[in-house]
């Protein structure tokens, strides 16, 4: 079996209890990849259930002087790219004979996607969510409940995605024989970063073809927000072998693991993390629950070190400004997460630019309204 290393990053830093399950998962994944029926089932679900392919939209007014295209993952059913991964892993879990799913969620988008696929396939579903995130992403908590998932609040520590992920892993350690851990980003122990990347690579494959069709050439730059990094790694996958295409990830300034973290071990992998000099994990801070995480996927660390991709930051204020601007100039309400990616478009040394609009903003309305009361839109 492969080592699961990306340069010096990745690996399996988990209690021994989980290792046989990770071996089983890796075997099941390899079998699925080799089985045309798996790909066919995912393709069928993508077109008949999820709403793929998602379109590319030219955003002509948002960034004067640029030719900007948006990859519309916000139009995917459930409102974000997270469904690509949840569907793929749910089908995989069924192949492995697991009837129970646990997941973590930050913004609630991965939780909703997971609850959705569990309802679709009749799987029991438990989602861990920090109580602070439950407060700021209320509509998604309600959606998960309606879909039949049990949302378990995590009341300690940061009360956000970091703690929710730890609790989901503790649940998995306890119920590993019956349960599949449906991780929501390209993080965690091997083989999760690989699985999530492959399942999100559909974004990049489609976008590359669509760009060639619409513009007759590849974009000069591809931009995506980076929390754990799954929508970014998915869209990058379509262009990583095109050396002239700049790959740019945008982190929240207060959660910039790649920008200001140090190598550490969090949630099963060695990767850049926000931590102190003793290896204690620091709190991340972002207005966007989906980016409010002190770690990042190991493959991004390797892309950063090799220079193939660059990683920038955007502040809460910049993300809010882009959120409002996209609404007013294009009629699109983005999620706060991709609003970070949009915030960096203007300053890029590129004209033809592709941004992954990873999700829609309905979930963020209450948070945005409460922060903008009094200030003109």
């Amino acid at each position, binding site marked *: 079996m492969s080592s699961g290393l990306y340069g010096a990053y990745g*690996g*399996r*830093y*988990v*209690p*021994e*209890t*989980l*290792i*046989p*399950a990770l071996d089983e998962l890796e075997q099941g994944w390899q079998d699925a990849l080799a089985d045309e029926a798996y790909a066919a089932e995912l393709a069928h679900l993508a077109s008949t259930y999820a709403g793929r392919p998602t379109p590319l939209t030219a955003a002509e007014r948002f960034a004067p002087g640029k030719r900007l295209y948006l990859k519309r993952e916000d139009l995917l059913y459930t409102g974000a790219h997270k469904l690509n991964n949840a569907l793929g892993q749910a089908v995989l879990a069924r192949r492995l004979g697991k009837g129970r799913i646990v997941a973590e969620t930050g913004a609630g988008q991965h939780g909703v996607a997971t609850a959705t696929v569990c309802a679709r396939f009749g799987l029991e579903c438990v989602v861990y969510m920090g109580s602070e995130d439950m407060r700021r992403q209320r509509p998604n908590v309600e959606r998960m409940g309606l879909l039949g998932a049990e949302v378990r609040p995590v009341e*300690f*520590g940061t009360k956000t995605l*970091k*703690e929710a992920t*730890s609790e989901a*892993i*503790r649940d998995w*350690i*306890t*119920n*590993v*024989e019956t349960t599949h851990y449906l991780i929501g980003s390209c993080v965690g122990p091997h083989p999760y970063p690989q699985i999530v990347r492959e399942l999100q690579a559909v974004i990049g494959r489609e976008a590359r073809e669509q760009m060639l069709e619409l513009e007759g050439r590849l974009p000069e730059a591809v931009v995506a927000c980076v929390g754990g990094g799954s929508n970014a790694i998915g869209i990058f996958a379509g262009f990583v072998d095109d050396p002239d295409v700049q790959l740019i990830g945008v982190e929240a300034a207060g959660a910039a693991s790649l920008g200001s973290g*140090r*190598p*550490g*071990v*969090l*949630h*099963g992998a*060695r990767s850049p*993390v926000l*931590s*102190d*000099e*003793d*290896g*204690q*994990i620091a709190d991340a801070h972002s207005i966007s629950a989906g980016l409010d995480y002190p770690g990042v996927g190991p493959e991004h660390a390797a892309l950063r070190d090799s220079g193939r991709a660059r990683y920038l930051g955007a502040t809460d204020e910049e993300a809010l400004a882009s959120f409002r601007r996209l609404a007013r100039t294009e009629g699109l309400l983005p999620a706060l997460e991709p609003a970070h990616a949009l915030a960096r478009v203007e300053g890029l040394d590129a004209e033809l630019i592709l941004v992954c609009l990873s999700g829609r903003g309905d979930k963020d309305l209450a948070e945005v309204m409460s922060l903008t009361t009094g200030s003109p839109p």
Partner: protein
Amino acid sequence: MRKRLSIYLMCGPETPALAEAAVAGGADLLELGFPFSDPLADGPVIRRAAERALAQGMRTAACLDCLAQVRSRVEVPLVPMTYASLLEAHGWDAFARDAEARGATSLIVADLPVDERPELRRVQLVAPTSTDERLRLAAGSTDGWLYLVTLTGTTGPRADLSPALAGLVERARAVTGLPLLAGFGISTPEQARAAAGLADGIVVGSRAVEIAEEGPDALSRYVASLRQAIDA
């Protein structure tokens, strides 16, 4: 052979006195927790103890000092137990060297399975989910004894001793002659006796951490009750 009794304590200002009390009560070995902010293998009791210890400033340097103070007070083997993040930050070799210099006998790293960092000498953990092949790997590289995690789950008291322990002991015995110590979910003298009847010794963590909050005398009495149960 006398069954071994290992007691886990979280590093903190009171730990040297508590360690002495645990040894007076009959502990043969002490595991000293170096707290980590995100302890995946731990249930609520040890997680909260880690949060408290970190709030008291028990970072790696303070924990190493604590280890040295414990060493100056007791003779039994001392084994720091922590998570990979602390070693990554301190330097893997430097951590092992600095712990040894302050009196550590070995190390336990809860999120470091046998395949990762094979060069680091440590006590390996195995679990009911471990295959026979993995038991063999772990036994082949472990430092002195093998830690049998009695259950699939995190640390913390349970109502009953895990039914998975007997089978795990049997499978581990088939691959190694090293001492087997059973831990996770053992808190009462009855559970201690039953587990020691199967394995070569036991580890008690969460309950010891809880009782330690009541002070050295309470801890000493509690450890003595475990000692009596496993010697009976």
